[in-house]
Structures are given as C-alpha cells and as structure tokens.
C-alpha cells in the first residue's frame, strides 16, 4: 500500500513540481514498487487524456453580448452610485434592481435565454403592476371618475383635494354625488358587490394600501404615469403571457415566499447580485420553479415585456427620486410584507377583479381613497353598493 507521501511524490513529478531530489526519489520508488508504477502509469494516461481535451471557442455572439452589457452597465452605474445615501434600503435595491435587471434582460433577450435575473425584473413589474398599483394599466380608457378623461393621464389629479378629509359613515350614502358617480358605473358596482372585493375591503392592510400616501405619491408621479400610459406596458399587462404568469402558482408562491418578502424588506440590500438575501431568493424553490415554468418563459420571450424594459418611462421611473421615495415608504413595505395582504393578492378571484378597468376607476376615485381609511366608512360603502341596483 502506497503511503500518502509516496502518492504525493508521484503527483508532484507528474506536475513537474519535483526537485532533483524528489525526482530521484520518484525514480527509485518506481523501480522497487509495482503499485507505484501502476499508479504512475494510470495518472500519466489520465494526464494525457485531459491534455487531449481542448478549449472550446465561445459562441461568436458572446463577445458582443458581453460588451453590450458592459456599455449598458456603464450607463446605469453612475446613477446608481449617486443615489442618496439615505435611500439605503428598498429604494436602493429597487433602483439597482430595476436598472440592472432591465439591462441584463435586454442581453438575455439577445441570447434568447431566461436567466434567473429575469425573474427579478418580472417580479418588480409584478410588484408595481399588482402589489403597488393593484390594477393593470388602462391609459387609453376614458373614465368618469376622479376627473379621468381621454386626455387626462392615468393617475389621480385631484387626490390632494381629499387628502385631509375625513369621510364618515354619513358621507357614504347614495345621496353623495361622488358615491353616486361610482355606483352608477355598472362595472364598478359589479366589482364592489363581488365577494372577493368585499372581503378584501375588510382587510385592514389592503385598505391601508388603497388610501396610503405612498400609493398616491406613486400614482401622481409623472414617470409612473408615463409608464402606465405607455402602450408597451398596457400590452404587457393585457398579454396572455403575463396573465398566465400572474396567475401562475410558481410566480405567486415566489411573491408569497419568505425569501421574497425578506429581500423586499431588507435594509441591508445594496447590491442585487452580491446580496446574500437575493442569492437565497434565487436559490429558493419558488424561484427555481418559476424559471422552469412555461408561463415565465413566455413572458421572457414576450415582445411587450421587452418593450417595457426598453421603455424610457420605465427607466425614468426606476431613476425617479419621488418614486423611489414612494417605493421605500413604510406603508408600502408593510403592506407587501403583510401576510393578510399577500393572501389577498394570491386570491384568484381578486386577481381577476384587479384585471378589470372597474378596479382601476374605483381606485382612482378620491372618495374611495378617503373612505378606505375607515373601516366603518368602507363598510357603509359596501352596504350602499349592495342596495344599489346593477
């Protein structure tokens, strides 16, 4: 039986790492030990076999893809670095994530590959599209609520008018013209009467988000409004691929996962790629399942999705201080981290409701925001809706 030091002697000789003395010892060993000879011969053959394996040339497109990535990063990096030091938590993470993943995704698209990082881009859009705004954009729809019209950008122009107003149960009657406007809309009324909406409105966190300053700040943001009004974003949200993804179990599990929640809530997140929490997120079963999912792949390959990532409004939104501030708000973070809120978001029926224009119009109405602050007023509103006829 060869001793470890004898085996090492053979390896070192093989590697050309021998001294004259060790080479002499090696030759001596081979002369006297058959097992050493056998091992040396086997290892030599193995070295020769390994030597026959040649480098492979990288695919021709790889270099251009890498250089394009680097150029994009060079554009994005200074802005990220210049982010205010006070935005060290979700803001910074979102900023970097939005910018970096957008850039990465462009390159991924070039390679027609679905990198795991793409999941983050989809997740961010999903957060904005669902968790934050709670509706698919419908910038081209005319509306009768809250001053919306064909020429009015999506958002809530009149939000400030009601900012400090306290809506009581007494305000919520069919006699109230604002309530009347809401409940005269067939789609809104249908939505409000639905079980899923009524249940959601009885959830404090859900209502808190509807009435939060963060959401108002977000929806009043020009970059956000531009994005919401963009055709690409509209197409993405309306696309079958995105709808399939949004209703996909793996995607929902990811959004509901502890890792995702921690990643969103962490103050320590400064860099997407180097962050341990993000790595855990990437390694989570939910993320892996998502990557393997057809719906996810469909979104990755979706033209509308690509257009959103390339959309100037999307990029502007990612770089916008006010938006970052909104995204960093405690209310928004708390809502997204809240179990009850996530349960609402995971509800199939509610997802369907959120996909309607009625939800968007209702949400854009100032009176609705105001009444959302009060459990009693909300309950009164639901009761009024039940009394109204479709």
């Amino acid at each position, binding site marked *: *039986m*060869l001793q*470890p030091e004898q*085996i*090492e002697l053979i*390896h*070192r*000789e093989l*590697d*050309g*790492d021998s001294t004259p003395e060790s080479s002499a010892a*090696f*030759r001596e060993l*081979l*002369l006297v030990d*058959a*097992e050493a*000879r*056998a*091992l*040396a*011969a*086997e*290892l*030599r053959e*193995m*070295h*020769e*076999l*390994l*030597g*026959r*394996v*040649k*480098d*492979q*040339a*990288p*695919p021709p497109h*790889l270099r251009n*893809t*890498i*250089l394009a*990535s*680097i*150029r994009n*990063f060079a554009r994005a*990096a200074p802005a990220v670095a210049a982010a205010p030091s006070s935005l060290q938590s979700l803001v910074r993470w979102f900023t970097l994530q939005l910018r970096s993943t957008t850039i*990465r995704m462009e390159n991924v698209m070039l*390679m027609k*590959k679905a*990198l*795991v990082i793409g999941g983050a881009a989809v997740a961010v859009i999903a957060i904005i599209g669902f968790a934050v705004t709670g509706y698919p954009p419908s910038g081209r729809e005319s509306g009768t609520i809250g001053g919306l019209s064909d020429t009015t950008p999506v958002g809530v122009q009149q939000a400030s008018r009601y900012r400090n107003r306290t809506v009581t149960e007494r305000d919520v009657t069919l006699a109230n013209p604002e309530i009347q406007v809401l409940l005269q809309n067939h789609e809104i009324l249908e939505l409000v009467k639905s079980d899923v909406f009524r249940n959601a409105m009885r959830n404090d966190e859900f209502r808190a988000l509807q009435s939060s300053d963060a959401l108002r700040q977000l929806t009043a943001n020009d970059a956000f409004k531009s994005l919401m009004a963009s055709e690409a974003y509209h197409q993405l949200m309306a696309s079958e691929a995105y709808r399939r993804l949004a209703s996909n179990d793996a995607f929902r599990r990811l959004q509901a996962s502890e890792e995702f929640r921690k990643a969103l809530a962490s103050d320590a997140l400064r860099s997407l*790629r*180097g962050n341990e929490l993000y*790595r855990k997120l*990437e*390694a989570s*079963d939910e993320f892996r399942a998502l990557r*393997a999912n057809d719906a996810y792949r469909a979104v990755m390959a979706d033209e509308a999705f690509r257009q959103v990532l390339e959309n100037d409004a999307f990029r502007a939104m990612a770089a916008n201080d006010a938006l970052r501030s909104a995204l960093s708000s405690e209310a928004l973070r708390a809502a997204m981290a809240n179990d009850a809120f996530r349960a609402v978001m995971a509800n199939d029926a509610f997802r369907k409701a959120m996909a309607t224009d009625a939800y968007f119009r209702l949400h854009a109405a100032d009176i609705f925001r105001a009444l959302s602050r009060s459990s009693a007023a909300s309950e009164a509103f639901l009761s009024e809706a039940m009394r109204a006829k479709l």
Partner: protein
Amino acid sequence: MHVSPVAAHSAWAAPTTFPTFADLDCTLDERPRAEDDQDRELVRRCLSGEQAAAVTLVARYERRLFNIALRMLGNVQDAEDVTQSVFCNAFLSLASYDPRYRFFSWIYRMTMNESLNMLKRRRPMVTLNEESSIPGREPAADAAMEAEDRVGRALNELNANDRSLVVLRHFQSLSYDEIAEVLKVAVPTVKSRLFTARQRLRLVLLGQRV
C-alpha cells in the same frame, strides 16, 4: 487512499520504461508577470472610461472564463450566462479591484463562484439538454471526441470542489500558487486537494472502462 493495483486494469498496465514526465506539457510555469501588468493597465484605462481597454480585457479573458464555466457546468448555455454575468459584475465593481493583486485571480475567482452558484441553483433540476450540452456527450466519433466525452462525464461525477481544482490545473494550466490565489486557500491545501481530486477522477475514469 486506496490505489488500485495495475493487474486489475490491464489497459492501464505500466509501461516498460518509467518516464519522468518531462515529455508531458504540464510544468508549473508561472504566468508571465508582464501579462499581469498589462491587465492592471487595462483596468486603469477602463476606469478612466476608455472603451477600447474594456474590449481588450474582454477579448483577453472571454475564452478562458467561458471554458472554466463550461468545464464546471458542462453546459454551453449556462457557461455563456456565467461568462456574461461575470464580466458584468466585474466591470460593475471594477473600481473595487485592488491592483496589488492579479486581475486574473480576481476574475477567475468570480467565475468559479458564479459557476458554483449556478450549480447550486440548478441542483434539483435537470438542466442538461442535448442541444446545449458540451458537444461530444453523444457517442464519440473520434479520439478527440472520445476524450471530450469521457472527461466531461467524469468531471460531472466529481464534486464541485474537486472539479474546480482539476479545471484550474488541467484546463487553465494554473500553478499551485495561482490556484491558491484564485481559490484563496494555502498552497499545501491546493496540493493535497488536487491530488485527492485527481485520485477520484482517476477512479471515475477507470470505472468508465468497466
């Protein structure tokens, strides 16, 4: 470690003469220092915004990093992803590169780490597909293909740590010192792990013949 007696493997029978391996191209030559100096200069120029320097740096390392990732992962598409990701991360954090250390060890380590992360991520999933895996996974047509096929399959049977040592030593021809620098371990540790990894690889290759 147990060493299989030659009698059990007649195909590996000892030669009648005992080479000193001087004929094998496997000496532990250090990388030319000039190359490291060039790397540092390229990094400096990159940081000053010179795009041509970035192109040169990518051209210098693209093939090497791609092949490290390819041998680690056994999959062309994953190797592309890792290579791209490493370059992106490297350029994103180029300012943090400390020129007292050699650039190659910095970026090789990133490649190793990214490859290991990729392996961890895909562990429960079947990711190899016939289109994207290393050519030669199908029945080999000639000697080179056979070598590719055998080595590729054998590497896949090694654990990631063993594989990284074999890849750096045999496919990147790094010295013990350089491997130690890349993996951030002591040189004696590199030696002992490399020898063990090779013993394991040898046994896997022998097993392929049975």
